[in-house]
Structure formats: structure tokens, C-alpha cells
């Protein structure tokens, strides 16, 4: 991609430097080692099972249904959850994990045979994907990193992992391999920071999603489901 343009930078930064009483600083500022780092002590030493319990209890506070299952039972659990949400249409990411977790038969034959429309994100179809997502009753993605403390799924976008799958459909299901659970946002941020230090390109969209959308803008009454999904379920795969 061609570089973008930068306008009016020099005078702007010179003004700042002047106000700070020094020459503009253009290189070699390094972050100090912060004196306090309480973020690393949260759930320190917790096992993966402990973190799963933290996640489970947080789900009740974020209006999100929590279901634990195994890799073998995942397809059945997913099918049941979608049925509870009233069936299709369903839209999913085009993500190799759907095959890894043996969900393709469900997506490609079982559901279609039951007249449940399934759209797997298809970059070559362009804006059509957005129409699918908008009409869908259920959007399904995997979680890339899961934050136990806040009950958050972290999604990195790419051409197969459309941004709108998680927020245009009426309801949302995240499949969470237990191994993706970390204590809190600190670990996810550190992971992304490492990627950048290694010269990797960060995803153009990183979503930290915590339950369904909500608002308290009318007399401070909590309304669940405003612009994004009105309901959400996390399905944790406990043996992966």
C-alpha cells in the first residue's frame, strides 16, 4: 500500500517543543521501566483451570451465556446454541479452525439440509459479505485470545476474518479454545507489542469484545443490545 500523506507536521511539533522549553525530540526516546506495574499481578500463578473459573463467573456479569464443551461435542453444542437463538441465517469467519475442530460438516451439509442458511466469509464476494452479515441471525467466530478477568474475546481481522461477523448479526457466538485464555488484557497487549517489535504488521482491526452491546444512555437504565448483537454465548472448548 502506498504511504499516506502527512500535512503541517513540522510547525506543529516545533510549537510543542518550544512550549516544553526544548528542541524538538525526533529520535531516541525510550519508555522508562514504570515504577509500579500492578497489571502483572492480577491472577498471577493461576492455572488454566483457575482462569476458566474466573471467565465463567465473569460471564454472568456481562450478560453472556457460558457453555463448556469438548472438541468432540463442539458441533452438537454449537448446533444446539444456534437452535436456541432461533436458527439461521448463520454467518461465520473463513478460518481454518472451523475445519480443525471438525465443524465443516455442520456448516456445509447438516445446517443447509435443515434449511439453515450458512454463509462463510468469502473475500472474493466483496460487499455481499456485509449483506449476509446484516441479515444473519447468528454470527460465529473463534476467539484469538481470551481475557479471563473481563470476559473478553480478542479478534484479529484479516481477509477471511471479517470485522462485521461479530457485530452485525442479531446474536453472536464465540468459540473459545481453553488454551487461548490469559489472565487479562495485559497479556494480550504484551503479545501484540512483541509482534510490533519483531517487525510484524498488526491486524487492521483488533476487537476486544466483552458480551453483547449495551447502553445506559436512557435514565441510566441498562439496555442490552443496541447497535451490535442483543445476545451472546461463549462456548469454551475445554480440551483444546
Amino acid at each position: 500500500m502506498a504511504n499516506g500523506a502527512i500535512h503541517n507536521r513540522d510547525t506543529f511539533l516545533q510549537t510543542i517543543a518550544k512550549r516544553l522549553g526544548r528542541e524538538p525530540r525526533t529520535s531516541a526516546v525510550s519508555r522508562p521501566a514504570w515504577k509500579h506495574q500492578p497489571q502483572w499481578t492480577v491472577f498471577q500463578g493461576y492455572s488454566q483451570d483457575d482462569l476458566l473459573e474466573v471467565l465463567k463467573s465473569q460471564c454472568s456479569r456481562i450478560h453472556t451465556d457460558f457453555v463448556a464443551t469438548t472438541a468432540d461435542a463442539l458441533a452438537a453444542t454449537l448446533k444446539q446454541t444456534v437452535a436456541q437463538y432461533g436458527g439461521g441465517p448463520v454467518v461465520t469467519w473463513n478460518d481454518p479452525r472451523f475445519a480443525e475442530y471438525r465443524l465443516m460438516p455442520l456448516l456445509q451439509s447438516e445446517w443447509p439440509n435443515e434449511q439453515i442458511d450458512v454463509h462463510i466469509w468469502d473475500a472474493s464476494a466483496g460487499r455481499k459479505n456485509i449483506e449476509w452479515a446484516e441479515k444473519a441471525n447468528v454470527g460465529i467466530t473463534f476467539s484469538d485470545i481470551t481475557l479471563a478477568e473481563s470476559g473478553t474475546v480478542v479478534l484479529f481481522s484479516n481477509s477471511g476474518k471479517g470485522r462485521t461477523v461479530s457485530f452485525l448479526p442479531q446474536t453472536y457466538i464465540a468459540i473459545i479454545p481453553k488454551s487461548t485464555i490469559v489472565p487479562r488484557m495485559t497479556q494480550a497487549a504484551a503479545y501484540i507489542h512483541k509482534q510490533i517489535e519483531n517487525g510484524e504488521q498488526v491486524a487492521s482491526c483488533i476487537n476486544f469484545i466483552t458480551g453483547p452491546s449495551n447502553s445506559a444512555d436512557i435514565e441510566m437504565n441498562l439496555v442490552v443490545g443496541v447497535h451490535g448483537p442483543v445476545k451472546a454465548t461463549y462456548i469454551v472448548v475445554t480440551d483444546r
Partner: protein
Amino acid sequence: MSMKIGTDPFHERVETGINNSFMRGAVAGAQERLRTRRLDAAAELGNWEEWRALGEEIRQHTLEHLDYYLMQLSENVAKRGGHVFFAQTAEEANQYIRDVVIKKNAKKIVKSKSMVTEEIHLNPVLEAAGCEVIETDLGEYILQIDDHDPPSHIVAPALHKNKEQIRDVFRKKLDYDKTEKPEELASHARKMLRNEYLTADIGITGCNFAIAESGSITLVTNEGNADLVTALPKTQITVMGMERIVPTFEEMEVLVSLLTRSAVGQKLTSYITVLTGPRDEGDVDGPEEFHLVIVDNGRSDILGTEFQSVLQCIRCAACVNVCPVYRHIGGHSYGSIYSGPIGAVLSPLLGGYDDYKELPYASTLCAACTEACPVKIPLHELLLKHRQVIVEREGKAPISEKLAMKAFGLGAASSLLYKFGSKVAPSALQPFTADQRITKGIGPLKAWTEIREFPAPNKERFRDWFREHKKGGEQ
């Protein structure tokens, strides 16, 4: 100044606020709820003071090296194909955005909540350019369809409205035929706004935190509106105050944790979205074109002064939620989009003392704001500094204070006059006194007693009491 709301003088705004009993009840209730939730969220962490110290250190470091981090940010945005415009003034920012809008031949613009675009008064500029501008945050949407009622709280902009009023506005403006139930109102807004996202040409957002190391911007919402604003239209414009930046993802994470806990008592809000440049090649959703507008608009004048720490602010409104003055007069009384203690410090700096000289006096200096601030801005000390500047440098002390000080100076200068004054004060003020309080003052006291009572002078003067007491002690 464009951040100004309304033209009534300060005391009239306050009177309107005081007399609006629904608003006062709503504000008190909201303060109570948000304050409790913040305290619970802080207590849950157990070491909140360490978190605050970390937040303060990050913000101070970033401000000290602001030019460096803005340089790094702009380089990284450009590397990802985004455009960066540095705007010294509100006019420059608006002009640039207007040019983009015209170049894109845009007719419809969706916006997610942004204080800085309110501050630079962007919407009228876009409307004058022939665009329909739609606010998508539920609170802002309500205000917008109610003939642009100004926001009264940084986080909950429509706090001053009750659900019946909102229902009536919906009925009048949106063909709404259901009840005042918040669920039904929100569901109607969802329906109306869905179509707007899908048909908009441009999405405009604010920015909670820009990340220098990657050229990213972070958006924090509960509704998910910012995600739709940035995923669906072909062009995205993000407007940020120049201080809203952190070095890396690791600092963003800490400040987001402080923000969501302090603002609404949540560990994280439902949607925290980090966007880098326009969409990548092969992506279907996300904008084709991305513009980042970095706004100074008076902020650099604060750098290097005794007020620099106010730029640490992360706009959580925790100070607003504990302020006893805000509780009684409400957000509109401040006459600025920035209300509460942070507004009383920031508005005179960005908007000038001419318009906002009263605000630093609209405080009891109780320091609850300072204690609540997650990045440790010494708000009440800054209010005191403002008063000092107003009196010493600007010569703009409120007229009542000037008169009172002059009279006191005159009286106190002569011991005879002082004795006389303090002796006659109780009887002179007797007609205005009820139950040891003065509730209907005259002259300079009038402005004071319209808002609160003034203690009546004690019948026994301190001097007399002291003499008596001393006598007693000697016996």
C-alpha cells in the same frame, strides 16, 4: 469560542439548573450509581493507588515527550497508507475535513461519540457543506434529534432527559408509536440507525487513545456504534486531541483499564476496538481511506505551564461523578461541553477567561475530584491556581468578590471601623436572616444566596468571645 454552549450568563444558567428538579434528581442518582460502581471496580483490584500512580507516570512521560510520540504516530499511520493532518486550530481541522468530504462527494456522514469534534464545532461545518450528519451514540442521537440539545455529561450526554421526554421527541421526530420503556426506545433507535450505517459515505470518530508504536487508534464504547461507523463507510476520519496518545499497546491497555473502571465501573466496556490504517488489501469491511486529524486548538498553550497536568485527562468523568457542585447545578450550567471539575479547569484554558472566569469559583475545593482522578490530576489545586491567575494577572475577580474585598479592606484597615462593622452586622442583616442562615441576600450577597445560604453573622463576635474566654482561662 466554539466549545461554548448557550449564551446566558453564568448565574442564569445555574438558576435554570437549580430549578430543574428532574435533572437534579437524575444527576444525583447517576452520580451515586457511577461513583459506587467505580469504587467497587477499584476495590476489586485491591491496589488501586498503584494503578493510579502508573496511570499518572504514563501520562506525564507521554506529555513530556509529546512531539516525539506524535512524530512516531504520524510516521506509522502513513506507513499503513493513512493520511495525517496536524491542525493548529479548530478552523484548520474543520477546513481539512470539509475538503475531504467535498472530494469524496459525501452526502451522509455517521459519527461515533467524540468530544473533540464537539469542541471544534464540526457538525455545522459539515451540514453547511450539504451533508446529513448522524450521531450514532444513543445519548448523542437523542440530543441531536431533539434540535441539538447540548450534552450535559462527558460520558452520559443525555443524562438530563427523562424517558418520557425522550419518548415525546421520538414521537415527534421519528414516527415512534411505542412507550417510554428504555428497551423499546433503544430498539427503535437501533432500527433507524442500522440503515444509516449501511448507506453512509463517511464515518467520523473521536479517539480514546492513539498508539504511537503502530499508528493505531483505540475506540472505547459499550454500544458498538464506533465499530459500525468504522467498518461500513468507505472513508474514515478520526479526530483526536493531540494529547490523546500513548507510546505502545502496553500503556494503552493500562489506560483503558483505568478509563472503563473510572467511567462506568466496568472491567472493560463491551467494545474496545484498535484500528490501524485503512483496511488491508483483501479485506472486505473497513474503510478504503483513512484520515487522522490531530488537533491542538489551544492545548499547546497549556504545555509547559502550571496547568500542564490537566492534559493527563483521559475523559472518564470520575471527577464529574463525585462533584457536589455539578450535582446541584448540572452539566449545562458550565456553559461548556466540558462540565464538572475537569470542565472548570479545562474550559477557561481552551475557551479563555472572558467566557469561563466564573467556573473556577463554582467549586467548594473539597478535593473529591482530585481523589477520584485515575491519573492523579490535582484538579482542586488547578482550580485554586485559576483563581489566583484571575485575580492577580487578569484582574477579573467576580464583581461580588471584588466589592466584598474592597469593603472588607476598607473596614478592616481601620480597627475602629472593623469593630463597628462586626458589631452592627448581625442587626443590619437581621431582616434577611432566618434560622441563623441568610437565604435572600442583597447586593453582592444576592448572587451567592440565589444558589446557597450564607451563614448569618454570629451575635457574639469572635473578639468578644475571645476576651470572655481569655478571662475565663485566667481565673
